């Protein structure tokens, strides 16, 4: 197992393990009207990640902008294999946590969610970083820098 360069401790909001690439934004994100569930591409024209694909990646954004329809889009992405595989927030609102719980219940897909890191996610993580995330312990490790 590779040695992490940096380790941050946060709160585990949804269980699961992830190791892979991070996609990081400093802007809040809403999946409803924000993600194309057929591809995993960000489609919100007002968002700085518009055009970026988050499929299979650890998606870090400060807060969710949560319409109650959020899990509709999220689970459609999960079903298509196009959802992010982990989420890191400054604060994870219940809407985002619900998405992970539903993905696990209905599609047996674990999407770890961690919030309340000691550092601000979009300051301590960079797009392209290789990270390991444990959704139970809330530990986020940077394995290699972009």
């Amino acid at each position: 197992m590779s040695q992490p360069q940096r380790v941050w401790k946060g709160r585990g909001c949804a269980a699961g393990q992830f190791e892979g690439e991070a996609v990081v934004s400093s802007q809040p994100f809403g999946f409803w009207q924000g993600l194309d569930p057929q591809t995993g591409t960000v489609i919100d024209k007002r968002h700085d990640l518009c055009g970026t694909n988050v499929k299979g990646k650890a998606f870090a954004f400060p807060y969710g902008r949560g319409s109650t329809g959020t899990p509709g889009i999220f689970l459609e992405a999960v079903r298509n294999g196009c959802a992010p595989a982990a989420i890191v927030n400054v604060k994870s609102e219940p809407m985002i946590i619900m998405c992970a719980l539903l993905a696990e219940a209905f599609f047996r897909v674990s999407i770890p969610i961690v919030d309340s890191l000691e550092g601000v996610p979009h300051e301590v993580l960079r797009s392209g970083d290789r990270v390991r995330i444990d959704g139970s312990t809330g530990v986020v490790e940077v394995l290699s820098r972009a």
Partner: protein
Amino acid sequence: MYLTDEEQRILNGECGEPQRLALQVLAKLGEACGAERLVEIASAHLVASSYQIAGEAGIEIYSRLVEQGARVKVRTTSDPGSIDFARWREFKTPAEYAARQLRIAELLDQMGVIPTWTCTPYTTFNVPRFGDHLGWSESSAVVFVNSVIGARTNRLAAYVDLCAALTGRVPYFGLHLTENRRGEVLFELTPDLAADFADHYFPALGYLVGQTVGDKIPVIVGLTRATFDQLKAFGAASAASGSVALYHMVGITPEARTLEEACGGRIPAERITVGTREITAVMEQMGGVTDGPVDVVGIGCPHASIDQMRRYAALLAGQRVHPDTELWVCTNVVVEEMARKMGYVEIIERAGAKLMVGTCHNDCPLQAWGFRRLVTDSGKFAYYTPTTVGTQCVFASTEACIRAAVAGRVERS
């Protein structure tokens, strides 16, 4: 989290797989949100009833649950669908799209959901009482029943609402607890604004408040009266531009007989003054009026009440909607039937407007129309339609909306 014996039995699978799965989701959500237990609910309302939200994932989930014998345990109603079930061809909905919505309807029916297809179920068969615990989603309905009725529900997400319906329970946190229902941000209206508060200022103020507070609980001071529909319009706008799930209007809403009561005895430090200048500025942001043609006018968001139908009929009597403009009046099937009996539907349709029942501009695929400019009196439409319908939006009073539909254009007066 504490579970009763019955809940433990459900979790052990003794009441079938759908209930087990649903309770597992609710228990985990409760744990993540610091709930000590679950609470029984009087009713549920489902937002993933539209194909636009549920998609193929929803159909897969519902099909599996139906196969496993899922039935709702409490009174449960459906949010708008993605088609007008009677007129989808008139609205140019593709047949294969309509078929997927009809499949969802069939599945919800098999689970015992009351097919109200409305964002205002509280005008039909789902009327909560003060203090009832509920498992509702649909942001505009959540804010209405919390604020105007004094029932208690968090903003549940799509499918979590179904978990609530299947088990008759939700995790006991957030707005279910009295201490979390206290007002947090104070909005004081200037006397000159309050004295001359026009009907369409309600959604405008809601939009401003939502934008300012996010998901905090606003308290509005300075208004002395508001109708059912004005409170509905205010709340819907605040829940769209922000995530407001509960507001208090001192002297108007039931948990705010006084400012003290609205704030649970602790008057918030954060005070914001709203005057005519602020209201004018937010209306400009929602969609300022610039001279030019209009393709489509949307009224009835949230779904129109019988009072609104009467008003629309009075405004449209003897008028004719411009041939290049569509005027769509969104409502639910219960109000439609009553409005038909009372002669309003005939007047509205004779004027060339269309009733859009059980859905709305926001929930329906409208690409085939190629609309460029929409006029609406709804703060929620103003927030969403630039994305959902892909139009430029103009926000105006109900009267101005109808004038625009008749003239086929708007003009800055």
